[in-house]
């Protein structure tokens, strides 16, 4: 099993969700996060007081899938989330040791 963690632009959420649903991904977890990579922040000025906002709002999507489906999912996600501009985000892929469905103790791929 693989866990796919994608940091994306918040306004891309709907497109990504639709694309993933279309290829049959059932579950995902989403958090609102703040951060930056190479896209540095912007400047705000309130009555002459300047603030540099370097942590920008992003969304983190976490999905766990079977090894077999991983490549397809990542390809779909990256296509949907891409604008081609700096700040589009990143995808990280991790190995998952085990998955357990709390309701009935299903384990492994069956729990996904």
């Amino acid at each position: 099993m693989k866990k796919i963690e994608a940091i994306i632009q918040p306004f891309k959420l709907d497109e990504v969700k639709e694309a993933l649903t279309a290829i049959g991904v059932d579950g995902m977890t989403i958090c609102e996060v703040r951060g930056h990579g190479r896209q540095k922040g912007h400047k705000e000025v309130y009555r002459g007081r300047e603030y540099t906002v370097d942590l920008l709002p992003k969304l983190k999507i976490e999905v766990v899938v079977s090894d077999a489906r991983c490549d397809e999912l990542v390809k779909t996600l990256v296509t949907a989330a891409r604008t081609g501009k700096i700040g589009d985000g990143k995808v990280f892929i991790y190995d998952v040791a085990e998955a357990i469905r709390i309701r009935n103790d299903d384990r492994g791929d069956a729990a996904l």
Partner: protein
Amino acid sequence: MKRYLFVLSCLPAVVLAQTTPDVQARLSALESGMRSAQSAGDNAWMLTSAALVLMMTGPGLALFYGGLVRRKNVLGTMMQSFILMAVITVLWAMVGYSLAFGEGLPFIGDLRYMFLRGVDSAPNADYAGTIPHQTFMVYQLMFAIITPALISGAFAERMKFSAMLLFMVLWALIVYFPMAHMVWGKGGLLNAALGGMIPCLDFAGGTVVHITSGVSALVTALYLGKRLGYPHDSMKPHSLVISFIGACLLWVGWFGFNAGSALAASGLASSAFVATHFAAAAAALGWILAEWRKTGKPSVLGGISGCVAGLVAITPASGFVKPMPALLIGFVAGIFCYLMVVKVKQKFGYDDSLDAFGVHGCGGTLGAVLTGVFATSAVNDGFKRPLGLVDGQASQVWNQIAGCAIAWALAIVGTLVILKICDALIGMRITEAQEMEGLDVSMHGEEGYILEG
């Protein structure tokens, strides 16, 4: 023939003698009808104006200031405006109105209207001969409410609620009522209409409202010291949307403030209405353009701050100047207040949190002086004399400066004394822990925004 002539010559007298009682009765009925018609029109406008001016404090100023503070202080800040609608009203009924408008000494009124004794539906000819005395009283009350509320912009986010209450009561008694009496009260030192020694033109409160509150704001900000973490921590306004709504309500309410100060639904009210609106518009543009040039972006906060600066500056002038000078006063005020807020405040480093001094103190002083320049009897002939520099009356500018100096002096000395008293009795500042927690929870046990659930 002679006899006929005699009879003929007597005829009109006889006719007149027969019809006089009837005609006179009808004439006096007509006169009283006209008076009550005029009173109805004037009173309708003045009651509307009174309501508009109250709307400037709550919701106007409460929203404007509430949006400019951090999220944890939104309720505390709104409460500082709202509570004055209650406290000052009670104080006004007890002694405030009498101290401001009772005929007394040049510096303060007497106690003739204490507990509003004798203030009823009969007009007070000295102040406003066509509206009930009660209407005049309640209209003036709304000014007494918003003036101290303006100061709260300087001590935002760090004053103890109990200390603020005492501060405001004393401030009304020691600074506002005397200043209102001096400028508008019968026999007041600066009253231009009712025999003051230094006639100072202040149509709707440039000295009384904006200089006193703005200068007291600066004194209070200096006395209290900076907010925790200022200027390093982020103190961004938590909701410019709220501030925007507040500022636009202020703009609308200001028509009651300035045009209402004509105290009648008259041509003068229209003139003040027009001057007010034009100044606000020009000032918004002035601030935005100055900012655009400096930072490269025209901001919403700049626009709404500018319109307020223009409204402040036109306040003393509104009933004395033509529309073109009003545009000029507004435009100059927009740029001047921008520089005061952005450059001067940063240079000196004081924490006038929401710029009560930069906008009201500075804009009010500018407006009061420019009133002496642009006031003209072509707009307001109530004084039966030339008014300002444009009328050839250069000395009026000096009177205006004298009025400003008195307002500044009273505000500085009065506020310092009051701060010392409050600090000794209660202590002005909240603790560091309370300041970190925010006024909403630490002072009022509530939160402005419940985002879960």
